[in-house]
């Protein structure tokens, strides 16, 4: 019987991603505290982090802590292009790369004969990424995804670290409980109230106790606190969700403008879904009021779909049910999730060709937009936005175009 090849996973994390790109694009920002975000910090430079700033912090608080910070709204398409350059470098050394917004997992299991020393291969990758993109990344090599990410975090920014399976126990034992993947703020609070402060402390709890406390994730935590993580690296391009959201240039209660924006966002999200051959089962609409209150509702479609009119009909219904307060909206967003692989649109009972015709029409739209940019075709309520918003070759210039998560 042959023993299985020990796994090796490389985690690549782009340092201060959005902020680093802005510093690269404008050398006057080098060494300055830079924040990218609208409403809250999406990314901030290491200079800003010295003032206690971090992702998710409201901009009002960030301004108070660091009045000299340069605040930029961000350029989603630019960030995507840089990320793709980096992920291409990753695919050159690994047959299986799983990518997220600003990080990637590369499965290097069994590639020792190709690369030789994997630490050297990771060092060469960092160098290549720097040459091609101008950005630095922090890398961690470990026997599984969780340990690779965790060890990489110990050498940020621009670092490289390796952890052997035999070192995992000692490495994890004294780390704060919050550093364990799956332990968020609420779980950490629960565990701290039980005087379980480190990852090592968690090992006293049985799998039954952890499951009773945290449900399905409890079972995973039982393994993770011992350094076990069997999650594979999927070379998938399938996102868990596709979100498109934006703030309005000016807070608005104009239903025409809001519904126009919703139609536009649905169009962009559905186009991305079609490009990935995915159909969404669930549609969510998120509202942000000007008084910082938020509302979100999600509902499932009868049949998974990637067709703009089908998704829009549900999105508009969700919007109208939620938009009940007499307060202007600051932003709106739509999220498609719970994807199924595409099987084509179901036809109407008495007009079987209708579904096919709509599908062909949407595909034709996609082809035109693929060649000339999304903004070249605007339809329906989204026409309300013409003249109100600036446009570029990708479509309307949104204040905070979100990235696909």
């Amino acid at each position, binding site marked *: 019987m042959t023993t299985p090849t020990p796994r090796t996973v490389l985690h690549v994390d782009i340092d201060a991603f959005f902020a680093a790109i802005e510093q*690269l694009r404008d*050398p006057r920002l080098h060494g300055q505290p830079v924040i990218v975000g609208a409403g809250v910090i999406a990314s901030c430079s290491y200079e800003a982090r010295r003032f206690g700033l971090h992702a998710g912090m409201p901009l009002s608080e960030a301004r108070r802590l660091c009045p000299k910070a*340069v605040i930029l709204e961000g350029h989603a*398409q630019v960030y995507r292009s840089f990320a793709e*350059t980096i992920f291409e470098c990753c695919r050159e050394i690994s047959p299986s790369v799983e990518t997220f917004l600003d990080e990637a997992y590369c499965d290097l299991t069994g590639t020792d004969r190709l690369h030789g020393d994997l630490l050297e291969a990771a060092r060469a990758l960092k160098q290549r990424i720097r040459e091609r993109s101008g950005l630095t990344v922090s890398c961690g090599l470990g026997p599984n995804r969780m340990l690779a990410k965790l060890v990489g975090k110990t050498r940020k920014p621009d670092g490289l670290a390796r952890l052997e399976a035999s070192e995992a126990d000692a490495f994890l034992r004294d780390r704060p409980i919050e550093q364990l993947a799956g332990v968020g703020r609420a779980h950490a609070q629960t565990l701290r109230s039980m005087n379980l402060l480190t990852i090592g402390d968690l090992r006293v709890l049985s799998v039954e106790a952890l499951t009773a406390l945290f449900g399905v994730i409890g079972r995973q935590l039982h393994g993770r606190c011992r350094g076990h993580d069997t999650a594979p690296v999927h070379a998938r391009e399938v996102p868990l969700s596709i979100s498109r959201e934006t703030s309005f240039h000016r807070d608005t209660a104009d239903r025409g403008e809001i519904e126009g924006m919703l139609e536009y966002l649905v169009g962009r999200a559905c186009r991305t879904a079609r490009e990935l051959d995915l159909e969404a089962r669930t549609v969510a609409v998120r509202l942000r009021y000007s008084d910082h209150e938020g509302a979100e509702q999600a509902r499932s479609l009868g049949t998974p779909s990637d067709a703009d009119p089908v998704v829009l009909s549900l999105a508009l219904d969700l919007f109208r049910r939620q938009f009940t307060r007499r307060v202007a909206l600051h932003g709106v967003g739509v999220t498609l999730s719970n994807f199924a692989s595409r099987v084509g649109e179901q036809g109407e009972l008495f007009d079987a060709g209708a579904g096919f015709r709509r599908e062909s029409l949407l595909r034709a739209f996609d082809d035109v937009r*693929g060649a000339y*940019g999304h903004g070249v075709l605007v339809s329906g309520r989204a026409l309300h936005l013409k003249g109100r918003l600036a446009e*570029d070759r990708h479509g309307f210039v949104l204040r905070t175009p979100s990235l696909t998560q």
Partner: protein
Amino acid sequence: MPELHIERIDEAVAVRADFRGGVVSPVAFRRQRRQHRISRVNARWIERSGRHPTFFFSVTDDTGDVYQLQLQSADMLWWLDTVTLEG
């Protein structure tokens, strides 16, 4: 640091560029009858959202202003997108 202000330009411009070694690098561009010598290419990236890739460049000219240029590979047209000014 003084505030930075991004101004959209969106104009086709004439650009002198170096294509040696399979890499394109803008060297100078002409706008409103004034030649801007590019002292530094700060960053470059490629967008592949359309059928033909578009090459983007962030450049600093000889006065220190930062511009964004794009080369649309479909028709080899140079476009001046923005200038980022201080103040």
